[in-house]
């Protein structure tokens, strides 16, 4: 069932349009992640859902009720801020119970809920401490605890992990995923980190310049990006793009030519009719993890090795194709190679993406 519905929402600050008509829905219990680069409007959209900012146009529905004009506290949402936004003069217990107190919840009920949240988040021994006496990870857990005790119908997370170090970020990511499973509540999560998006989301909303670029499951976005922006944003390291020209089209099969391709061309079967004509300029997208040096595959890039980054279990090969474009290849294990060594990077045709001159997928 559709739990959160954002209907053609627009947000303007003066003449500047920050959100330009966004529409999307989330089912009950779904984990939706808004992802996009800085300034794409993802945090603004979250604040509009929370009611912290007013929409300029459009409607927002939560559980079938139009909440567009409803004040934040009455929307049944709880938000975890990037900065934690804990009350510095209150201890952990007071921080978590403040919202319940404001709702005139009976004292014994407050105590029960705070104790339960503290147990879930392993904060029992920290209840009497002030925020400044806590580590970054502990503060973030208190911020989540403050949200949990109110038993919200919708959780909003605004880049909650971006102030934590890499190790803690990984731990907290798992905790948030577990929390979502345990509570079964709808969650909307904003991040610029595509790894967080891919690992946490049931569905991802990719935003750019205040518009939705694509909505889909992590696998859909990875396998079938609608344009070069999504293709480049989802996946790490990002997809390689090479300029190619259409040599011929026959039904679902297209032959593309480029000086970067070994033999000057490659034949791809896109499994659907191709809307392109001979001579069209396209982008050929290849993910670094799909490239194999001197492997099988219909697409062969003629490259020269720039340098190798050994990451321990994996290696990153930074190469330069014959056409001048940079191409990165991600390999399992270690790769020994000399600089300027010629390498043919090969990919299966099924793993090749074609985008038209405007960046749309063919």
């Amino acid at each position, binding site marked *: 069932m559709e739990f959160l519905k954002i209907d053609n929402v627009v947000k303007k600050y003066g003449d500047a349009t920050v959100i330009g008509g966004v529409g999307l829905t989330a089912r009950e219990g779904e984990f939706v992640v808004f992802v996009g680069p800085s300034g794409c409007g993802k945090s603004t959209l979250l604040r509009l859902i929370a009611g912290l900012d007013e929409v300029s146009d459009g409607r927002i529905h939560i559980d079938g009720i139009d909440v567009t004009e409803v004040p934040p506290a009455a929307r049944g949402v709880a938000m975890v801020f990037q900065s*934690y*936004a804990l*009350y510095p003069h209150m201890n952990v217990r007071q921080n978590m119970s403040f919202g319940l107190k404001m709702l005139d919840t009976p004292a014994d009920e407050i105590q029960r809920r705070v104790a339960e949240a503290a147990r879930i988040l392993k904060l029992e021994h920290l209840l009497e401490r002030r925020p400044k006496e806590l580590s970054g990870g502990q503060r973030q857990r208190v911020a989540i605890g403050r949200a949990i005790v109110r038993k919200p119908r919708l959780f909003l997370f605004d880049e909650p992990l971006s102030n934590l170090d890499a190790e803690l970020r990984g731990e907290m990511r798992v905790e948030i995923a577990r929390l979502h499973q345990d509570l079964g509540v709808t969650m909307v999560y904003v991040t610029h980190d595509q790894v967080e998006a891919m690992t946490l989301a049931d569905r991802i909303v990719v935003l750019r310049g205040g518009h939705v670029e694509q909505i889909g499951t992590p696998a859909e976005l990875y396998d079938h990006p609608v344009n070069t922006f999504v293709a480049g944003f989802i996946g790490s390291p990002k997809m390689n793009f090479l300029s190619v020209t259409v040599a011929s089209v026959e039904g679902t099969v297209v032959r593309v030519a480029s000086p970067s391709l070994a033999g000057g061309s490659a034949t791809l079967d896109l499994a659907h009719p191709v809307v392109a004509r001979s001579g069209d300029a396209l982008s050929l997208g290849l993910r670094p993890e799909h490239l194999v040096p001197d492997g099988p595959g219909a697409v062969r890039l003629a490259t020269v090795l720039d340098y190798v980054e050994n990451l321990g279990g994996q290696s990153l090969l930074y190469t330069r194709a014959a056409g001048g474009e940079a191409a990165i290849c991600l390999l399992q294990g270690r790769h020994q190679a000399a600089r300027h060594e010629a390498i043919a990077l090969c990919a299966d045709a099924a793993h090749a993406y074609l985008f038209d001159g405007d960046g749309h997928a063919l």
Partner: protein
Amino acid sequence: MNPRQLRRAVHLLFLAAFLLFTLFPFFWMVASSLKDQTDLLASPPVWAFTPTFVHYAEIWQDDEVSGAIINSLIVASSTTLLAVLLGTPAAYSLARFQFRGKKDLWFWFISNRMISPIVLALPVYLLAQRAGLLDTHLVLILIYLSFCLPIVVWICTDQFRSIPGDIEQAARLDNANHWDIFWRIYLPLGLPGIAVSAIFSFIFSWNELLYALVLTRSDARTAPVIATSYMSGYELPWGKIMATGTVIVLPVTFFALLVSRHMVRGLTMGASK
């Protein structure tokens, strides 16, 4: 002596000179209040003397002095209380809300401090006379409030602006209304600024001489007026003047020490990233 030691020595030398400059008058006042008339007027000054409390006994028996100190206490604490009571909500509004004329209002608060007090002394006197408020506590409280309110608004607005906006928004999501946010979040977090502005207000109202001199005659005379009132006639009772001065300085010193903890404590530390 290496350059670091030299820098430290110069630093300490300047500090000592500054302390001497600021503290010597206080030392002289306290020392003089404990000398008898002969030691007081001795030239060159007497550094080693037997302390006497005769001047303190004298002002203790003088009802005018105790009355004036009580007047000062009433006027300074009422002014401070009212300035904080009225100034903090004003500062909260200026710090957090957008409204028409906000900039003008802000400038008005600041520009109040640009006017030289003497310029207004005569008009204020005439107004107070018409209103029948001469020689009352109320007239001093009102006029001091007009000086102290801008200080409170000025300092507290700045203090409130430094509180991260996320904290206010978290409180809004926690069902707190503007009053709750002001009372439960901004006031406790703004304590350092409120304390500083309260100290300034209290010290200003306690020490103010010009308006107290112009607007009071007998009933509402404050401590500084009494201290200067001895400087008339044929004799200058330095001992009594210095003892009164010492007694006047004590409450503000005590008050400043009491709230100085808040001035240095960064309450918002650790709240946000």
